């Protein structure tokens, strides 16, 4: 698949010496659904706006389908944006809003009406031509904003935090709708969000942005299972970040010491060069509670601690376990997992947990 967008050394500074985007380079293939993920202020929105033409970079270039569009004004770029607050024109009907871009380019009215009608069918709002934005629900407004951007068949559709104004239930259904729309139309989608669940559910690839720079790019699975920095590990899903000391023992196994626990982490994923002090990154759902001291599962490494808290959150159970070095780790059990109720120790009881060393990531401290 051909590269449709290339960002080359993109840099943007704002007044007061704030570098919002710091020398970012990346490329996007045609038809992909890519997400820029990061906390507020990390520069992802600025990047999006530079691609859309609402900000101009201080250095670097934006290349679309081989054409340098860095300095092209937004109305000359074959790129369209769905704004965070939808930005529907309040004084125009749904039909005029969606058809606006077509009419501007001089397409005659009857053709515009026809295409708007088709687009309304596509977004499942048939017959709403003459409504005003103020008469629509939030979800409907979002779809109109989407239609208005898509009708011009842009090379890339930019989405600026598209779900932020929706409530949780609506958010889920919109995610699915957006995904199916993407498959149906086949245009490249570039989305900006701070919601990592959303990013993982919807994207072909995710770019994690931190302080104006790319932390990692990859598929959701790659980012989740093989984070290259503790930041990514912590940002996507939950992680237990456990300080430990590692050493090779006489049998050339790598042993990590956590308090009074010793774990054989030879099969763990080691990221970068490490010395003795490391951080172990273990996902809460990879830790299992073990039967009493008698059970020994040789495939699992054992961590012993004291049960501190048990939380029930509807579809899953969360345990907080206190280790002897005053560290707590979280364990997560979706409720359809087979869980022997005898394993759920009372608060204050000693509990043993097991984790497969292959699921552990080791970062340098």
């Amino acid at each position: 698949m051909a590269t449709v967008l290339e960002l080359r050394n993109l840099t943007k500074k704002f007044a007061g010496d704030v570098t919002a985007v710091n020398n970012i380079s990346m490329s996007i293939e045609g038809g992909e659904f890519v997400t820029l993920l990061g906390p507020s202020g990390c520069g992802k929105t600025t990047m999006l706006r530079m691609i859309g033409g609402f900000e101009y970079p201080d250095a670097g270039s934006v290349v679309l389908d081989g054409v340098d569009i860095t300095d092209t004004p937004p109305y000359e770029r074959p790129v369209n944006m769905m704004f965070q607050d939808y930005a529907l024109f309040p004084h125009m009907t749904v039909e005029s809003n969606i058809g606006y871009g077509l009419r501007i380019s001089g397409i005659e009215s009857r053709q515009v009406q026809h295409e708007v009608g088709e687009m309304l069918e596509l977004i499942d709002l048939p017959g709403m031509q003459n409504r005003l934005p103020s008469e629509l629900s939030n979800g409907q407004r979002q779809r109109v904003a989407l239609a208005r951007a898509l009708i011009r068949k842009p090379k890339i559709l930019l989405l600026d935090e598209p779900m932020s104004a929706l409530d949780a239930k609506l958010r889920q259904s919109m995610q699915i709708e957006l995904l199916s729309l993407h498959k149906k139309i086949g245009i490249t989608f570039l989305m900006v969000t701070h919601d990592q669940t959303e990013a993982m559910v919807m994207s072909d690839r995710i770019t994690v942005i931190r302080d104006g720079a790319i932390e990692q790019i990859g598929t959701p699975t790659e980012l989740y299972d093989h984070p290259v920095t503790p930041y990514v590990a912590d940002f996507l899903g939950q992680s237990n970040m456990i300080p430990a000391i590692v050493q090779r023992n006489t049998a050339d196994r790598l042993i990590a010491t956590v308090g009074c626990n010793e774990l054989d982490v030879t099969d763990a994923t080691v990221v970068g060069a490490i010395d003795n002090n490391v951080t172990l990154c273990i996902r809460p759902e990879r830790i299992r509670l073990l039967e009493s001291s008698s059970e020994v599962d040789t495939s699992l490494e054992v961590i012993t601690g004291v049960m501190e808290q048990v939380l029930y959150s509807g579809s899953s159970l969360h345990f907080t376990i206190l280790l002897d070095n005053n560290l707590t780790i979280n364990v997560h059990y979706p409720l359809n997992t087979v869980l022997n109720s005898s394993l759920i120790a009372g608060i204050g009881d000693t509990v043993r947990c097991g984790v497969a060393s292959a699921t552990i990531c080791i970062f340098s401290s």
Partner: protein
Amino acid sequence: MKHSTRTIRDFWLLFTGPAIWWSLVLLVPYVIMLMISFYTRKFPFHVPDFQFGNYLKLVEDPQYFLVIFRSLKIAFLVGVTAFVISYPLAYCLARKIKSNRVRLLLYVATIIPLWVSYLLRAYTWKTILGSEGILNSFLMWTGIIQEPSTFFLYNQFAMVITMAYIFTPFMVMPVYASLEKIPPSLIEASKDLGAGRIKTFLKITLPLSMPGVLAGFTFTFCLSAGDFISPALVGGPYSNMVANVVATQFGIAMNWPLGSALGMVLLFIVLAVITLSDRLERAGRINLA
């Protein structure tokens, strides 16, 4: 005491005084003026009566009709002139100035002339436009004209300029308010969809600022239509407006019934314009949320 009774008691405690005042100084005088408009003129004053003669005179006698028409025409011209002058200023203030402090300062600077002696501000145009005035002496000094021109003063042109000058701040305020309410994302969306700066202005910004323009124009129109200072100061012989005629009828001419009738006509015209403007605004009302 029950809460509802207490509420009623509190209300009348608060409102009795004002209610009496407002009835006496607003309601009653308007009613009286209405009554007098039906009286008959009888030298030297007038007698109570109920006849439409005064109103008929206004319609039949061309000089009165002309005055009314002239007032409306001037008021309209003033509104348009004030609009042309104020819109760029309001637009700059609302959308181009980034610093909050500078914007507030300039906004206040625009509003201040509004409250600086109307009389004196009209007077300054008399000094500027007169044949011995500043504009003429400037033009002669620079050699553009040889003799002082009487073109500038004592005519409708001078009136329109003077009143537009007085009322420009009245226009800037509501236009600024409505321009400020437009979310920047709407402008960006329009550009995103392919409209350049001018098209975006014509299709998005201008229509959305119309409520403010309408409010400003209405206000300016109504106040100009009933003005008598500018016509008297800079207007000249053929520029009598409604208010001047009313003043004469209540003054030298001692024809209160006719003056009241003319006053009522002015009142109705202004009320009609305000109501029309209200309806227009409500019809085009859009939720900018």
